[in-house]
């Protein structure tokens, strides 16, 4: 098993990634030299697509951090996440359902 079809082994991939990062750093430093940072009130305030955004709504706590991804996988977060309710009887019911599912699956495969 060679790691990478032909050329892209892990060492080469790392060197290319580091070169790319170094290049991006150089571009960033170069742009700072060319144009100075000129802050203004309009630039510092948060852009909310034209709406009023209060400062305390902007910082997301750790649960809402990935709210776009939560919107993409909405059926999961509506049914399965609250299903982990913490009740022991529900967890034992899952074990029994899991056993029945494995039994049916193996019976279908090993006929």
């Amino acid at each position, binding site marked *: *098993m060679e790691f990478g079809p032909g050329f892209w082994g892990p*060492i080469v991939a790392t060197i290319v990634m580091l070169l790319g990062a170094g290049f991006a750093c150089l571009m960033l430093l170069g742009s700072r030299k060319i144009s100075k940072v000129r802050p203004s009130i309009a630039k510092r305030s948060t852009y909310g697509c034209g709406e009023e955004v209060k400062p305390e709504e902007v910082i997301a706590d*750790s*649960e809402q951090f990935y709210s776009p991804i*939560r919107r993409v996988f909405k059926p999961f977060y509506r049914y399965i996440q609250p299903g982990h309710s913490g009740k*022991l009887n529900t*967890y034992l019911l899952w074990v029994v*359902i899991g056993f029945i599912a494995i039994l049916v699956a*193996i*019976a279908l495969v090993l006929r």
Partner: protein
Amino acid sequence: MIEIPPIIAIVLPLFGAFLTPIIATISRRYDAERKVCGWFTVAITIAMLLTVASMGARIWGGEVIVYRLGGWSPPWGIVLAVDGLNLLIALIVAGVSSLVAIYSLVYMRRDTRIDLYCALLLLVTAGAMGITLTGDLFNLYVFFEIMSISSYALVAFRRKWDSVEAGIKYMIIGSLGTSLILLGIALLYGMVGSLTIADLAQKLGQIAPSDVVVPLALLVTGFGIKIAMIPLHAWAPDAYQAAPSSISALLAGATTTAGLYAMIRVVYMMFGAFGVGTIFAIFGLVTMVLGALMALTQRDLKRLLAYSSISQMGYILLGVGFGTALGFQGSLFHLLNNAIFKALLFMCAGAILYRVGTTNLDELGGLGKNMPITAGLFAIGALAISGVPPLNGFASKWTIYIAGIEAGKAVFSLIAIIMSVLTLAYFLKAINSIFLGQRPKRLQNVEEAPLTMLFPMMLLAVLCIVLGVLPSLGIDLVAPAQGAIMNQSGYIHAVLGGI
């Protein structure tokens, strides 16, 4: 000739566990109980690691070491049989337990009853080592129970509200699992009349596959509870969150590895049921997806790492489910890597908990200036688990992806790659919330973790980098194990042929 290393590797931690309370009582008189118990545990686990490593040269030469307890031959007596697969898992278990023992020297400094902790730690290690080295099915069940019961007690060690809640839940779900395993063994004994794994493998090859559906399902469910397969995973987040962090590292590294070894040995080498691979692939995929999605919205660091553990076990089941030689190599390599970087991450979480007192992501922040070494090691672990080159996660995940494409199941590889990206996402959230960003005022005087706690973490990080830069080293470690899985008849001949 009598082979000594397998039995010594099991007897050392077992008798060490029984000697620990005696040593603690004697040393309490000289007020040195903590030091003596801690260093005794470290000495025993390192001696066990050296014993296991001494078998390495002979097993990688192709031999299967068989030890008959009491001199009785199988199938009438109990055997310990060590081949390539057993040796890999035994090395992982011994390595993780010795590093956890060194880490616990400082981490458990603020807890009382350190003698009970060391005794239980040695019992978990003895149980895990017994599972990996035995060749008898009921012996495997007994050592599985030893390992499980000691880990229930260790999860509830601190006797606070979260520890006892997690402990009772883990205990009841785990006991249901081991009862199902006992029922499966009972059905198998009634069907065939033997308990040695090699003998069962020979006799089960002669009966129709449709007769063994119920015992196989019972055994897969029982072992699946231990490795936290979906939907049997519900105990895992609570147990990893509430246990002391050294025990979380031990659970993630040693007991899950031993459980997965038991599953592979029973399903693939005893039943010979290579057709069950598709079921493992589907369950592995669901496990991977659910673990990653649940980890994205967690508030607590150790709970996030627990769901990440569940997700990585999904990768390993996916690799096993592909059924090809490359799939087995990839999943065994990922098992080795999972033990290394999961133990590293849980030890880093323990270092943060030791110095700060909380692992809630909302209350931490900006600790990168206070704890630079811990931050660097956590970053290495996080990048390794996400599959970023040149670290070891990249090599094993790459092997699993290529195995999926070669087995014709490219969709599984695609979903696995997407879940890898989500893994990087939630680890970046964790690093950002803990080490970067604004530091709250009350965390200004947090110091770096003590050196004895940093030493096992640095060793694991060096292993991450070495196995990533030289992935052929990892594949060479894993290839004998993969060869042993495919070589069922060789195992049967070696164990039974010595009569």
